[in-house]
């Protein structure tokens, strides 16, 4: 049986590679009885990336690979992952996705009819601009920044920038012509494949917000399988996402070097400088922590804190 898997990036990204890996493992695990056909660019939903998850939820699509930010209109709690400076590094991220917070998010998505099989990675969002290197919050004052959603508007306002919501198709020429000064996105997932370096001079890998991806399957389909099949599908998804996370992190690590070669000026902030950004974005953190639910945020924070303690 061939199932349909939808994701919203193009067919050269690590999302696609993760989906292909999933297909490969699924075929192998089911002795060729199950596979998926992958539809990139949100083709099945007419290009609408927000709709994929909703359609999986009501059983109109089988599988989805999408990121937390794309699901927030349907599941507002998903915004918790991208709260500014919730995470410091990959260890923090892995502690939450593989621990209680990941389970809690899985429960919340299940209420919408989506069974989360495994978590992968879109990456930390880094800031680029054309005016000057961003080393401190004051450097953002008055910069026109293109952002992706309402939380980022509050974050940019907290930093004194002038946030602009703009469709991605317009952003490239807007950056080129100076309609906006900068933008923020993951390196491996957007800045490199979408050639943002062609039109931006400065990048600061400030790790201010994180975006995970996940493989989800519709509850209807999931419930139609016996425990053995469910275990096989889940295993395939987890291996695929582990692989996807690995190649994404590799690409990101190599990415900064690549961006330097392409003529971008990279400013890597120190721990103290990061902390200044963290303090400046606190008001936005508080506002959005309230919106996504303080209990949920606490669960994430506690898990991160526990992971940061040296093992006894």
């Amino acid at each position, binding site marked *: 049986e061939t199932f349909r898997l939808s994701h919203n990036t193009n067919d050269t990204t690590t999302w696609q590679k993760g989906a292909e890996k999933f297909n490969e493992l699924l075929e192998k695990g089911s002795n060729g009885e199950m596979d998926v056909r992958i539809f990139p660019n949100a083709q099945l939903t007419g*290009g*609408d990336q927000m709709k994929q998850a909703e359609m999986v939820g009501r059983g*109109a699509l089988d599988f989805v690979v999408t990121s937390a930010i794309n699901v927030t209109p349907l599941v507002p709690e998903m915004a918790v992952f991208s709260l500014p400076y919730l995470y410091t590094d990959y260890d923090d991220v892995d502690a939450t996705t593989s621990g209680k917070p990941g389970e809690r998010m899985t429960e919340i998505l299940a209420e919408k009819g989506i069974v989360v099989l495994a978590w992968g990675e879109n990456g930390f969002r880094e800031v680029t601009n054309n005016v000057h290197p961003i080393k401190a919050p004051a450097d953002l004052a008055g910069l026109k920044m293109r952002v992706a959603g309402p939380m980022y508007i509050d974050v940019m306002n907290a930093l004194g920038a002038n946030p602009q919501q703009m469709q991605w198709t*317009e952003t490239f*020429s*807007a950056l080129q012509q100076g*309609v906006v000064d900068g933008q923020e996105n993951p390196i491996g997932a957007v800045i490199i494949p*979408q050639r943002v370096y062609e039109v931006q001079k400065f990048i600061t890998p400030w790790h201010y917000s994180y975006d995970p991806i996940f493989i989800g399957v519709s509850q209807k389909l999931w419930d139609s399988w016996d425990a053995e099949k469910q275990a096989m599908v889940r295993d395939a998804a987890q291996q695929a996402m582990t692989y996807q996370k690995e190649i994404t992190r590799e690409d990101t690590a190599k990415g900064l070097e690549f961006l330097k070669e392409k003529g971008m000026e990279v400013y890597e902030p120190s721990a103290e400088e990061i902390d200044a950004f963290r303090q400046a974005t606190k008001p936005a953190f508080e506002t959005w922590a309230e919106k996504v639910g303080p209990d949920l945020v606490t669960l994430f924070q506690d898990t991160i804190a526990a992971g940061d303690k040296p093992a006894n």
Partner: protein
Amino acid sequence: MLDLDPGTAMVVLFFVLLAIRVPVAFALGLSSLYAMWQIGFGLDLVGDLLASGIAKFSLLAIPFFILAGALMGTVGIAERMIRFFRVLVGDLPGGMGVVGTVVCLFWGAVSGSGPASVAAIGPLIIRGMEEDGYPRPFAAALVCTGAALSIVIPPSIGLVIYGVIAETSIAELFIAAIIPGLVMGVLMIATLPFAGKARHAAAMAASGGGLAALAPKPYAGLSYPARLGRAFVDAFWGLLTPVVILGGIYAGVFTPTEAAIVATVYALFVGLFIYRSLTVRTLYSALVEASASSAVVMLVVTFASLFGWVVTVDDLVGKYSGALLSMSDNQWVILAVIMVVVLIAGMFMDAITIMFIALPIFLPVVRELGWDPVWFGVALMVNLAIGLFTPPVGINLFVAANITRMSLEKIALGAIPFLITSLVGLAIIAAFPEISHLLLEFMR
């Protein structure tokens, strides 16, 4: 239905429905729903697809450029602008046909969308060409063809999307597309003798380079520089339009889509405060007409999104192009096959949908054969521009039919000469990558 796969059955049904005069938009919708029902998947997505297909951000410039066009016509901006070009180059053989082509190229540097350009400058060029002795369908076809070059000449929404999908420099694409755009313009002028009964320079000189509709102030008896000066002064606010729009885009004040809004406000401003020709009544009527015209186009785009969905899911392009691509190892044959597939796709779908469906199939071929993606993108864009005026789904034709109240097929027939020369142009641009590289090399 016979023994056809759902995608092929859809195409056949679409033509049957067209033949019994079902409007294009509804024929697209009905044939797509039939195919979805056959595939057994997708009917529960129809609501979502209609909702996302009806208002795409990439097409937001269309209603605004249509409104701007309506207002520029109403308040007299476009008329004065075209009169200037008429005095400037109207005495050349071909008269208003040359003027129309030059205006189209000029406007291409303002607008990134073909149908929006038809709406903005079409009515006056067509009227002027008609008064100059050109048959109306030929004039409408010239506008459809010339306005299609708006997606070749930068700024171009199409090139931006290609650059993103193909991971190619958009800045280079923009520069590379300029000369091919001009080549296409020259070929359009070469098409003019095919109009048959165009009047020529002598007749126009006798009328003082001015037509009844386009020259309320007689320039007769004046020398060329004096006529030109007068026309320039008269047309000043109109000629300033591209300066305001391009200046605004390149100075980073607004985006290409916002430029359409600024053009609308500019027309309102000139109409209200400079020419004082705009009234509440004419404004209301311009708003209503622009809504209806834009809706006619957008409803086709909306139902075409269902059609495109079936083409994707049924892998129609892959099925047919896979067979075609396996026919030969010769790269010229492969290039020709790709171009023919895109031309055929261009008959049914809009440029952006085609890129999303077909590029994942063609780009690996481009990479494998080591072709330059910039040149390929430019050739592709010229091809997609042709698709804007080929029936049955040619958005430029739709807008032109709408503003001229002529039937689709009349304009499509008128477009045959332009289609032929455009195909020649496409062949030249595809066969000689040097044309696309010329300006790039010069700038390096």
